[in-house]
């Protein structure tokens, strides 16, 4: 395990940054003030010893809001990755295994993939009352077809191999073939895919909140903080830069872990990219 990690410096760098963010999210109440508390006397203050990241137009401390925003981004990233991979895995295995299901489901997936992810999410959010759960669902749905395609292609490539034929000929039940013989070969590429889904979700949540179609504005997410800074950009660029920088760092960290896992788990893809 240790020597494996040593050969993958990108995984170590990425995980280190992620651990940092997880710790920040866990100890947020102890290192930051009230993210909703405002002080009308301290509006649009530059970053200083008192306000590390400055204050916004209501006199709210941007540092506190960014620290609490870490929680939202991590929750969204992890939940979307889990929901999209689990559902995508189920549909993908069924599609790869049953040809008749495949015909219909893949057409639906093609249609879903033709819709730009952000527009699909916007449509869902406009039609429902905004909440963190709705945001997570709205971001998960457009990610599912990509996972399905990946899982399906793996299942199709494994299906014809002799050991599956052997399992079938010894009378193994279908459910057992799927879970014991086919599922394991999807895990490596699926983990890699999950990291990319996770970073895309973090970016999409911030983008949606920035546009005013994401997490409800009273929740301090990075995208919401950036959205409040939009009108005051020339006066107070720090409202946008600090959460933006955190966002970039978080996405970079997740991608680094993903790239590292891809190179070490799946040499076939590593050669392609």
């Amino acid at each position: 395990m240790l020597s494996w990690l040593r050969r993958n410096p990108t995984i170590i760098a990425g995980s280190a940054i992620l651990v940092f963010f997880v710790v920040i999210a866990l100890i947020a109440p102890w290192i930051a003030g009230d993210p909703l508390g405002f002080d009308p006397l301290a509006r649009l203050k530059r970053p200083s010893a008192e306000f590390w990241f400055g204050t916004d137009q209501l006199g709210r401390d941007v540092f506190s809001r960014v620290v609490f925003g870490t929680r939202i981004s991590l929750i969204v990233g992890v939940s979307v990755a889990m929901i999209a991979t689990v559902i995508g895995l189920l549909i993908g295995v069924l599609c790869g295994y049953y040809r008749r299901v495949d015909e219909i489901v893949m057409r639906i997936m093609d249609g879903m993939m033709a819709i730009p992810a952000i527009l699909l999410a916007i449509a869902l959010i406009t039609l429902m009352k905004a909440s963190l759960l709705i945001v997570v669902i709205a971001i998960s749905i457009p990610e599912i077809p990509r996972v399905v395609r990946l899982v399906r292609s793996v299942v199709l490539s494994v299906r014809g191999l002799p050991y599956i034929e052997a399992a079938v000929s010894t009378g193994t039940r279908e459910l057992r073939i799927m879970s014991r013989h086919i599922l394991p070969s999807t895990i490596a590429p699926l983990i890699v895919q999950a990291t990319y889904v996770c970073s895309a979700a973090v970016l999409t949540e911030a983008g949606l909140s920035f546009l005013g179609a994401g997490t409800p504005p009273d929740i301090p997410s990075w995208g919401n903080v950036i959205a409040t800074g939009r009108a005051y950009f020339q006066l107070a660029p720090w409202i946008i830069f600090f959460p933006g920088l955190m966002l970039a760092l978080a996405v970079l960290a997740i991608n680094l872990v993903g790239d590292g896992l891809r190179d070490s788990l799946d040499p076939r893809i590593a050669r392609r990219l």
Partner: protein
Amino acid sequence: MTAYILKRLLAAIPVMAIVALFVFLLLHLTPGDPAAIIAGDEASPAAIASIRQKLGLDRPIWEQFGIYVGNLLRGDLGTSIFSNLPVLTLVKQRLEPTLVLAVSTLFVAVLFAVPMGVLAAWKARTAIDRIIMGFSVLGFAVPVFLIGYLLIWLFAIELHWLPVQGYRPLSEGIGETARSIVLPAFALGMVYMALIARMTRASMLEVLSEDYIRTARAKGATTTAMLLHHALRNAAVPIVTVIGIGLALLISGVVITETVFNIPGLGRLTVDAILKRDYPIIQGLIILFAVVKVLVNLTIDISYVFFDPRIRYS
């Protein structure tokens, strides 16, 4: 050739049918009364009833779908709830800035990314390669609004070289338009550049290890001729594919970029529709963007034939 194109065109029809069905069902399968949600929290029952009637929600569902598809086939994307204008008219009004932005972004991204990828592959595992690949990793991570605001801050606020925000239409002269679109195109193009550069490098690396490259060199082909004529042309299919996939990324980015730079295009139309909960506009834009995406994929499939004649026969 014609048969190939025809087959591709036919394959696009079920995809669009699914998109239409999906967009239609979205409105009906979401929990709660869609008319009440679109009308907002403080709407009077009369306002809700009026929206229900406007959207045709009072008719049986199969009839609604029939009318919807019929309208789509006649090019009617629906009618805005608030302005009462056809969505297609609104789209036409906002089309130019978005088209200019998309084309400039595509141009900027390909112009920079392909040479970067070729250079990285040619100088693989050197410092140049590492810098280019490092840039590509960063390009994937930095969100478009951060790049956008950084560019505005540097080139408009600090250096005063370019306008801060806004769009100047082509009717005011192409120079003015170019000045207003440079920063947005680079901001939006960053992730796209990262994607294309990465794929160009990977595809070139694969081709450069082929025997015919060694033959070309042995014949005395210059490095430039070898890289561009022998290698890049054979590496083109995956690069063209990824340019197409990237266009999907671009569509999502357009909405955010137009908001950052205050460009009155389709992205702003989307955002205004979100704020007013004008669902028919969003519905119409989804159909429109899906058509664009399907057409782009179609163009790419057909362009393969020109890059790789072998595909014609398979």
